[in-house]
């Protein structure tokens, strides 16, 4: 039930933020933050698949290219899972690196798909204007999403549990 409520809140808040913020400010990617939160709570493979699934939900709700955001979010999760062992469990720096790595992985996947589709989905202008703002707003929202994720999915497993 909590998970369902969380997802509803996620979908609604993402849309509301896009409307609330001025057009020149990219809204935070709450779907990516949700996938990041799950990456810290699930085993790697389920986390990757969950990330892909969340991205797929984003595509379905956005009525865009099906699989585009799915590959992006899953790319972010994959890169995050790769560096997760180098990150500490808590702290501002950990938050910063987590969001930055996930966003980097996501946009790398976007670039691959843009090249594959021969489309102008991601341009140099997008990379210089949208990406930094999106990263910043996503970073700002991360603590809130993490709290909500704790409410919905439970606490992050500690180091001992992770080792087990």
């Amino acid at each position, binding site marked *: 039930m909590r998970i369902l409520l969380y997802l509803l809140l996620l979908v609604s808040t993402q849309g509301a933020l896009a409307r*609330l913020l001025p057009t020149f400010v990219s809204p935070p990617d709450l779907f990516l933050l949700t996938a990041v939160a799950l990456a810290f709570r699930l085993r790697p493979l389920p986390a990757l698949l969950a990330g892909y699934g969340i991205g797929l939900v984003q595509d*379905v709700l956005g009525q865009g290219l099906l699989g585009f955001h*799915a590959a992006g979010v899953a790319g972010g999760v994959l890169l995050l899972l790769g560096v997760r062992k180098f990150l500490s469990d808590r702290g501002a720096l950990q938050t910063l690196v987590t969001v930055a790595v996930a966003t980097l992985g996501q946009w790398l996947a976007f670039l691959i*798909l843009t090249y*594959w589709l021969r489309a102008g989905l991601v341009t140099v202008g997008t990379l210089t204007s949208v990406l930094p703002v999106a990263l910043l707003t996503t970073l700002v929202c991360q603590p809130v999403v993490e709290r909500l994720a704790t409410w919905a999915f439970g606490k992050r497993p500690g180091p001992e549990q992770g080792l087990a």
Partner: protein
Amino acid sequence: MNAWRRLALVYLGLLFLSMVSTRFQVVPPLALSSGVLPVTRVFDGAADHVRGAYETLVNDRDARHRLEVLRDQNEVLRGRNDVLERENARLREAAQIRATQFPGPVSVASVVMVDPSPLLSRLTVDKGARDGVRRFMPASVPSGLVGQVTGVAANTAVVTTILDPESRVGVTLRGKGGRGLAVGAPPDRLRATFPLTVDVKVGDTVLTSSLGGVYPVGIKVGTVERVEQVGPNDVNRTVIVKPSADVSTLEEVALLEALP
């Protein structure tokens, strides 16, 4: 093969799936997004209201600021308008004087001081030698003669009005002629004398004449208010003239070029 590589392989599979679905532009079923539409609509509506309220607040603040700026500008423009209106009145006055009294150069000066003496009637104006004002320049207003400049400083000048007891104005009667002399009779009248041959009546208009060579001919001085009784030894007829220009309320006077 370590775990991350396996994950990468899985991801490659997912990426391939995305490549295929994006290349073939698989359209997601509309029913899925329609299912959450009522909820998103509520949130979107709330967001629109919040944004609208914020924009209204900002616009209101900006409008208030603009109002302040416009009020300030309005004050400045009103002040400028007053100045221009005064300037316009001056120019009209000067034009009227040139048309009716004296065709030569005319400059308009403001009265800055009035002699407080009840016996004398003198005005100080804000133009002096630097502005080309010289002694004996006649001072006038459209309604009639005021007096003449009797003292000049660099930036001011003193006008002795026709009501001053030291003032002498050569006068004549409109339509009747005759030469007379008007002397100031404080506080607000002139005493004019005419030869007995001149038939002066109450209500006659008194104009400047060429007598004395100070004032241009034909400027209205006033109206005969009373004709004094002529005594057996009198050689002149004395009349009381009410000046046409109200010296006590003057704010500006036109200074005419002195006659050569």
